[in-house]
């Protein structure tokens, strides 16, 4: 039978101009991969209608071993302090095939 292992799911919602920067961060923190979903929304930075290059959001989903979460959040806080608008939340998840999430991406 399958075995589920607890890991952390970090979700980041931000303007999609930050894509390259967020992915670089994720790589540096040794994630095994990442998933991006296009999003729209609104918040303190106003309406993000999704129709213009500058007002589309992205949602980054990242599964990480619990011990690596803190380092990633440090990086995200630096971006936050610079003025970028990031919505970040962490969820407990149980993953299938947990070893894959411990191997860093090789690209």
């Amino acid at each position: 039978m399958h075995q589920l292992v607890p890991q952390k799911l970090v979700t980041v919602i931000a303007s999609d101009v930050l894509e390259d920067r967020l992915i670089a961060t994720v790589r540096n923190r040794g994630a095994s991969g990442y998933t991006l979903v296009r999003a729209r929304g609104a918040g303190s930075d106003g309406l993000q209608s999704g129709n213009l290059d500058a007002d589309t959001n992205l949602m980054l989903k990242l599964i990480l071993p619990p011990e690596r979460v803190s380092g990633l959040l440090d990086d995200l806080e630096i971006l936050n302090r610079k003025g970028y608008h990031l919505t970040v939340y962490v969820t407990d998840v149980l993953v299938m095939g947990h070893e894959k999430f411990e191997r860093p991406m090789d690209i």
Partner: protein
Amino acid sequence: MSAFSNLLIPAVLFFALGFFARLIKSDLRFPPDLAKILSIYLLVSIGLHGGMELANANLGEALVAVIWALVLGLLLPVIGYALLIATRRVAPLDAAAIAAHYGSVSAGTFLTAIAFLGTQGVEYERYPLIMLAVMESPAIVVGLLLASWTRRRAVAGGSLRPADEGEPGNGGLGEILREAFTNGSVVLLVGSMLIGAIANPNALEALDPFTADIFMGMLCLFLLEMGLEAGRRFGDFRRVGLILGGFGVVMPLIGGVIGLLVGHFMLGFSVGGTTLVAVLGASASYIAVPPAMRLAIPEANPSLYLTLSLGVTFPFNVVFGIPIYHHLAVLLAGWT
């Protein structure tokens, strides 16, 4: 009345339709990608045409036009910044980000002006097309320099801790220049222009049905979507406030008049060409500059600059500005 016959141009009417649809709270919506697809199409088509003109241009004249385009792109953001700071209603970094938009240009406005001249049967020089491409980036650079300067003053004044050098958003001049010139729209426009200038002319002609014949229709769809978007932003007008909203009308008039003077006196253009230079001066970017500002001046509020550029200045220029600048160009030509 001839001054408002631009209201009979389909592109302008489609803009109005989009705006009106938001006003009556219609659920008319464009798929998000359509605006991006249309703007890619428009940039490629303008670029190719600009390049073909460039290939046939008198290089000396073209150079003078390029230099004045640079001057406009560097000067206007500084004027805008000073004005905004003078209103005392806006934080300095917001002012820097907003100002950058006014030194750059709006291809949508420019193309509407060309449609306007077309229906009026007014001839125009081709150099403004090249100027349009040249003016995309310099204002971005000025905006970022203004922002750096603002940040340094704040650090010196103690209201900001020193920026961590080498970290994103705090790049040096090299990084700033790189970002301004690798901006997606800039690469697309300048790249297409280069292709238009060097490609085999017969092969380019085969592109005409795509880049020229269906162009007006694509522009109409684009302006319809921009109308929707402007209508959506116009509602935020109250957020922006009356004084800042006023800037969205005054600044294009200032940029337009400076453009008129440059077009008429410095470049010696006809009424049509002068009108187009005025439009370059008057229009504010909403494609190329906003993403650059989000990335490089994260402290600035994007809803301020998007509302001003897309919700105030763009409608103003399309409906009132273009006929005004044209009218002034006629006066100027008669007067001298």
